[in-house]
């Protein structure tokens, strides 16, 4: 049995760094009374949303397998871990910024379109890097077209309304 040193370092090193960062962050937040009910609300909501992202990624991975692409267990688990933890963190930060800003964030079609583009690009770039196959980026064309179409249609409608 062969042990991958890089894998062990990445797995346990990443976990140690993550726990250390989480602990330091909590310590700093406690000093500023940051571990209050708003903090709990934001991070519970972020975790809830991250399960939707994970569900989406599971469907994408199942689709790839159905299209005949071979994916290893480690690759699939790595992508799921990254999607779940990554989306949890990104959504949490986004909600934190949104809650403390004076201008309320609105879920407009333009924002939805940009969101679709960013999410599909990140997802398929990660899959391309992990599988070492750039052809996976082609899968992001359809969601990107949808995102651009949604954003541009909304912008055109807004321009027509203002004229």
């Amino acid at each position, binding site marked *: 049995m062969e042990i991958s040193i890089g894998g062990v370092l990445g797995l346990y090193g990443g976990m140690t760094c993550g726990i250390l960062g989480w602990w330091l962050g909590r310590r700093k*937040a406690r000093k500023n009374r940051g571990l*209050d009910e708003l903090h709990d609300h934001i991070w519970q909501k972020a975790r809830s949303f991250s399960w939707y992202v994970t569900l989406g990624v599971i469907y994408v991975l199942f689709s790839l397998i159905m299209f005949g692409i071979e994916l290893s267990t480690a690759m699939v688990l790595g992508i799921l871990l990254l999607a779940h933890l990554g989306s949890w963190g990104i959504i949490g930060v986004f909600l934190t910024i949104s809650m*403390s800003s004076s201008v309320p964030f609105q879920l407009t079609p333009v924002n939805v379109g940009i969101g679709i583009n960013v999410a599909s690009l990140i997802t398929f770039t990660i899959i391309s890097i992990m599988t070492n196959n750039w052809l996976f980026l082609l899968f992001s064309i359809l969601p990107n077209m949808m995102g651009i179409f949604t954003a541009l249609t909304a912008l055109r409608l807004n321009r027509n309304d203002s004229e």
Partner: protein
Amino acid sequence: MKNRIRELRKSKKITQEELSKVVGVSRQSIIAIESGKFNPSLELAYNISKAFNCTIEEVFIFEEEGMD
């Protein structure tokens, strides 16, 4: 749910930071509550009201939706 925190804070010349220290939450929480983005728990609403020497009803205005 609307609230009169900003108005009461200005009248008593209290900053968001000072209010957050009194009630034991972060300044971000006060910003979120003031702007109506976050509804506080009953305990926090009570503490905020107490900081202004008011009752909860005087600080928070409950709006019933779809009730005629």
